[in-house]
């Protein structure tokens, strides 16, 4: 197999045997990026010198017989809303176009401690707001499976570079499906961990009560390896859990038995693409053949999830994004006559249309007189949805369903119709509202050859179980091994 096609586990084995060096692997990827990324545009910034220097350090330490971290010498990509203290952190927004973070995010410290190599920063919808990566302030990203279609979003850059073998894995962030939906669109594995499992310190906030960083990888074991490296308690994030991190790899190959998988009939209602429904049904049949029991569930409150999500997420976003005002850092309008004018002009020119739309929505729902009707009510429904899931997990170990209502759509198809685009999140927002871990794994292709994902959700802090269930499917199928044909 070609060097760039290897999984992290395979690469690590080659590195350990001395068959290949980290420098070779890293340089190889940069060559590939140079050839293919002009079309895909998954990367916003490459950190070639720093990456090769790090790879070289790891190679030397390996030659010296030093004990190395679990991701030693593995080249990875980072979504550009995660702070890295060298290079820029832009969130794909003009308002942070030249922003350099003075510190590393917790997950970056963790990757450094694991001896990983960072290739660069990947594209996203501005401030992670979107489902197609078309909302980037610095150009859109194309789906490696078909450059006329979107890679999904907001972690579209991360999913695309992993799918195109331009990184061995990547970090994304997921507020309403931003890891899982692009993973599904690009036929890679995307995991949103339980809220609180991975520190948010250094993740530029969108919806603070929903955001979570997670891995996008080629295989389930690779996702497990990456999660193990970044998951931990962090004092700097008060919402990070003081729980031991499980050993996600120890039993990942062992099938879960007995296994009860719940399926909500509501998931297969109108709006779901037929081919996706079929692929998900086939996946359930496969689980049944592997010994799982399929349990029909009814989760009637799910239909409110999208509305609740867009109230909570935009409200938090309107507050989180208030700090981008041109006073201390980022873009500042220079022609303003006073500071109020400077705020308005800096924000009007610095933010893109979708970000402004969400700030306005959130500002509205938090305003006096509307708060009770919108935000407070949304919080109450959120609690009820959580209870719905708690009840479901009394009956089943896992809930399965589609990740997206449609396969990857065409570039430009939905960008002028924000409401339709918001519907892309209809199956993914529940995991964010409830805080539950959820994974997207490849489960087929449409007749047009576009990827389809399967979503699995388990109880809070049961990533070990979730990964094992996902691995059962992966072992029995080869969807994850198929590769897109790239243009250059």
């Amino acid at each position: 197999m070609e060097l760039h096609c290897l999984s992290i586990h395979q690469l690590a084995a080659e590195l350990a045997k001395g068959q290949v060096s980290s420098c070779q692997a890293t340089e190889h990827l940069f060559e590939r990026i140079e050839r293919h990324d002009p079309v895909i545009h998954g990367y916003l910034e490459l950190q070639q010198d720093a990456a090769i220097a790090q790879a070289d350090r790891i190679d030397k330490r390996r030659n010296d017989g030093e004990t190395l971290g679990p991701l030693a010498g593995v080249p990875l990509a980072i979504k550009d809303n995660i702070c890295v203290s060298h290079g820029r952190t832009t969130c794909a927004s003009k308002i942070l176009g030249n922003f350099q973070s003075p510190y590393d995010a917790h997950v970056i410290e963790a990757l450094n401690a694991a001896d990983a190599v960072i290739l660069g920063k990947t594209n996203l919808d501005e401030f992670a707001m979107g489902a197609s990566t078309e909302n980037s302030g610095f150009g859109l990203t194309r789906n490696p499976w078909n450059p006329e279609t979107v890679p999904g979003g907001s972690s579209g850059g991360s999913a695309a570079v992993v799918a195109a073998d331009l990184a061995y894995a990547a970090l994304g962030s997921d507020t309403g499906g931003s890891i899982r939906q692009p993973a599904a669109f690009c036929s890679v594995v995307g995991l949103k961990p339980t809220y609180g499992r991975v520190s948010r310190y250094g993740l530029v906030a969108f919806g603070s009560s929903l955001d979570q960083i997670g891995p996008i990888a080629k295989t389930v074991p690779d996702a497990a390896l990456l999660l193990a490296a970044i998951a931990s308690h962090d004092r700097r994030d008060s919402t990070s859990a003081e729980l031991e991190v499980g050993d996600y790899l120890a039993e990942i190959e062992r099938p879960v038995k007995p296994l009860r998988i719940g399926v909500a009939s509501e998931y297969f209602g109108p709006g779901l693409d037929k081919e996706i429904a079929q692929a998900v049904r086939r996946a359930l049949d496969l689980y049944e053949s592997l010994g799982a029991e399929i349990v029909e569930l009814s989760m009637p409150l799910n239909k409110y999830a999208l509305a609740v999500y867009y109230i909570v997420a935009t409200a938090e976003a309107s507050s989180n994004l208030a700090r981008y005002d041109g006073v201390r850092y980022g873009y500042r309008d220079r022609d303003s006559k006073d500071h109020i004018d400077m705020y308005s002009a800096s924000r009007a020119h610095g933010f893109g249309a979708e970000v402004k739309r969400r700030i306005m929505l959130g500002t509205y729902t938090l305003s006096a007189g509307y708060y009770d009707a919108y935000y407070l009510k949304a919080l109450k429904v959120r609690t009820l949805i959580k209870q719905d899931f708690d009840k479901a997990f009394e009956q089943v170990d896992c809930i399965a369903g589609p990740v997206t209502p449609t396969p990857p759509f065409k570039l430009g198809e939905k960008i002028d119709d924000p409401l339709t685009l918001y519907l892309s999140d209809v199956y993914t927002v529940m995991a964010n509202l409830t805080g539950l871990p959820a994974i997207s794994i490849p489960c087929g292709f449409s007749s047009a050859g576009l990827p389809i994902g399967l979503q699995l959700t388990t109880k809070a802090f049961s990533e070990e179980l979730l990964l094992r269930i996902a691995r059962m499917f992966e072992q029995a199928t080869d969807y994850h091994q198929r590769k897109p044909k790239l243009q250059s």
Partner: protein
Amino acid sequence: MGYRPTIGLEIHVELSTASKMFCGCPNHFGDPPNSNVCPVCLGMPGVLPTMNRQAYEYAVLMGLALNCRIATFTKWDRKGYYYPDLPKNYQISQYDLPLSSNGYIDLLVNGQTKRIGITRAHLEEDAGKNVHDLPGCTGVDLNRAGVPLLEIVSEPDMNSVPEVMAYARSMRQLVRYLNISQANMQQGHMRFEPNISLWVFDDAEPDGGHYTPIVEVKNLNSFRSLERTVAFEIDRQAGQWQADPDGYRMDKMSKQNRGWDDVREVTVYQRHKEEADEYRYFPEPDLLPVEIDDAWLGRIKAQLPELPIARYARFRKEFGLDEKLTTLLTSERGTADYFEAVVQAGASPHRAANLIQSQGLRLANERGTDVAGLGISAERLAGLCKLADEDKVSATTAAGIFQAMLESDDPPEKIAQDRNLMQVSDTSALEAIVAEVLSENGKAVADYKSGGKKAKKARSFILGQVMQRSKGQANPKVAGELIDRKVLGQT
């Protein structure tokens, strides 16, 4: 017709924790601009707040001292408004669940006790400061951004300037007693926002009456400006009401914000508040709610010292001190503690109180410290008090020895001996001097003996001569008795 001022006060107190409310930066005044800052208090992208437990405990301690109900469950809220000194453009505060509420404080105003209700006291983070004296631009200094701030809101229970001042001063005294704030006015540790209106009533109709429109004055940072603002507003509103008795009333005019002009000594109109401010409060998702259990609350309660008003009452009763001296001794916890330690070490309360008042407080003030900071241990001062109590040194000499003790670590007795300051009460030693003086001043002796007009003056003269000849060491009482005996033959 008449009116009664109705005044409520909001006070912001900066707590004297080592670090800021939500990050580890030093909470320290006076450093170069933007030196005590980090990504968190600068509001950089991606940062998260973590709560300072010490600040929370300080705030609870104050809530307890104000007889408040302490909430067992509280949360944090974001208060949104745009201002350059507020890095995140929202302030982390407490909105609908303050950590303490429904309390009161008792004040002594003109010898009367007055109870002022406390609506609530909650924690928040301070903002930075805009710096306007730079050429061609406005600077922002964020050293203060994120400093823990306790907001204490009173009920509108104050009816006069002296009550407002007693309340404000009691709050300052209280936070210093609790050692939760230095309450240094010059460093902006305390800021006042009075709400003032007048209750206008007609004696003929006891149930009738109305309020003048409420005026809120923001950001007063000295007792002087608070006092003048409230006095000015009472007069101004009374004048407005007299000029327009039917129109100048709360139900016909909205609330108004005014600012204090320190130069012209007037309040200046700023804006009307037609409706409530729009702060878009919502629960802070980056922080967990705070739950206080009995054990934690118990540990905080255990730190509560005897409060000023209780201590005042006890000092009056236990030591029989007068109002003025007691007020002085209990004004600061350190002074009261020191005084009690001196008494504990064997001094008589009056002697200790007088020496602390006349020497200790004066010298401490001169040296910019407090009495305990003078470096004279309670035991040593008690030793000095005992010398005076036992007539071994005179009151005047004791004051001198107090000063000498600042420079010397010797026991007071040794200082007195070394400097020949011990009083001679020994009659045999004094008899020779008295005999000498009497023999040399026949006229004065005669005057004294005569018992006439000049007798009193003559006795003072003789005593003065004795004191002089003993170099001030004669115990005047003993010497006087000796003179009386010798001249008048009294025993």
